[in-house]
């Protein structure tokens, strides 16, 4: 049986699909019986989703860069 500490150590691999079949079973088994670890994994997923929508810094010079690139294309063709 996996300990909570081991569960946390393997959590990223679990979320990224990097565990072997057997390791995945061990993980699922642990999660079935451990509410704290279920909460941990659920909140890890929530953290991932939060990073996904965290606004990115805007590209400040997008317009100028787009103009330069379009001009570069013309020069090359």
């Amino acid at each position, binding site marked *: 049986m996996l300990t909570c500490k081991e569960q*946390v150590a393997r959590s990223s691999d679990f979320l990224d699909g990097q565990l072997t079949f057997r390791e995945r079973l061990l993980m699922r088994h642990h999660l079935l019986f451990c509410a704290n670890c279920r909460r941990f994994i659920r909140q890890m997923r929530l953290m991932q989703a939060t990073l996904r929508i965290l606004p990115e810094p805007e*590209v400040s010079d997008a317009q100028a860069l787009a103009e330069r690139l379009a001009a570069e294309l013309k020069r090359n063709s």
Partner: protein
Amino acid sequence: MAAADDAHLLERLLKGEQRAYKELVTTYQSAMRAVAYAIVGQRHADEVVQDAWLSVVRSLARFEGRSSLKTWLLTITANSAKGRYKQNRREVLLDDLPSPHGTIGDERFAAGDGHWLVAPFAWHEDTPEALLTENELRECLEHTLLSLSELQSSVLLLRERQGLELEEICNLLEISLSNVRVLLHRARLKVFATVEHFEETGEC
């Protein structure tokens, strides 16, 4: 972006449509920057991205759609970064810098049986949108992301924000899968600790 969208955008780019270039830049620049940042560091990342854009335009007509446009752009960026700074390319740094709110470390678990000593705190919100309505948390997260090593933060952003597969990250950055896994895991635990701290105390 799906292949059909790529093809359509490409067509407009080849016609020299300026709006298409703006779309290209705003869609992909931050992913390109993350790749450059990982390879050459913050100081040279912008130069590398500029170089990469020029190479992209020059070879646009040769893009055959064998990979997605995004993968192609990121490969060009990685090559431009590696080519330019081959001499001083750094070793893969697995350095773990301290983060403002720490991590989920050994001290959270009992030494004997490995159970939680301090259980994960239950967050108040259960959607990312609800979490991010707190502006302070946003700033707090930015702060934590800046505290990560260049490689750690790039790997995290390429995975979570850009949705790249682990193998793609390995190939672009020329680091092993096991290193990518370590970098990613450490970065995630620090970000987790930041959200947890904020949810628990209401402050950054």
